[in-house]
């Protein structure tokens, strides 16, 4: 994401990362990874609930990917930084998502993840015509 920040800016889009953490924890992770865009905390998950981002179960979070793609899953588990999952405010079953919000405060595009791997690519987000006329 950080490497693509310029492309988002070219399209007039600002990027904000939100996580289940305090603001200090969020910024600490992002500083460590060299992230320059805002990283904020939503420790009570109000934003997640307001956009309908659900909770998975063991099947969605871990078992399905182990069954369907074990090698890649084991590789990802090995690379994972587990500190975020161990924060006091973290619900490990919480799923994420993406929302594009226009200047008027309207959600123009939404993706609700169904599993940890279920997130659109940067290219898809950049290519999405969120300014199309509203129905």
């Amino acid at each position, binding site marked *: 994401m950080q490497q693509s920040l310029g492309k988002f800016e070219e399209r007039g889009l600002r990027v904000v990362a939100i996580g289940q953490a305090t603001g200090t924890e969020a910024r600490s992770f992002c500083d460590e990874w060299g992230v320059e865009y*805002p990283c904020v905390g939503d420790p009570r998950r109000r934003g997640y609930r307001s956009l309908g*981002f659900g909770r998975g179960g063991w099947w969605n979070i871990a078992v399905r990917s182990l069954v369907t793609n074990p090698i890649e899953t084991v590789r990802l588990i090995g690379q994972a930084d587990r500190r975020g999952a161990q924060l006091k405010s973290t619900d490990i079953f919480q799923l994420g998502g993406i929302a594009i919000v226009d200047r008027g405060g309207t959600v123009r595009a939404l993706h609700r993840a169904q599993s940890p791997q279920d997130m659109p690519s940067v290219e898809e987000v950049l290519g999405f015509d969120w300014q199309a006329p509203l129905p």
Partner: protein
Amino acid sequence: MSLECWNQPAVDLVVDDSQRGEHNLSDYWSESPVVLYFHRHFG
């Protein structure tokens, strides 16, 4: 695994920002359109 067109007012909420303190998420989108990445968790 794709974005969908949506048309719904975003619920404003207070987020915790280590640099700006607690503030409203709308502070971001009032400046420019914004992509909000909600992570499962950091890490």
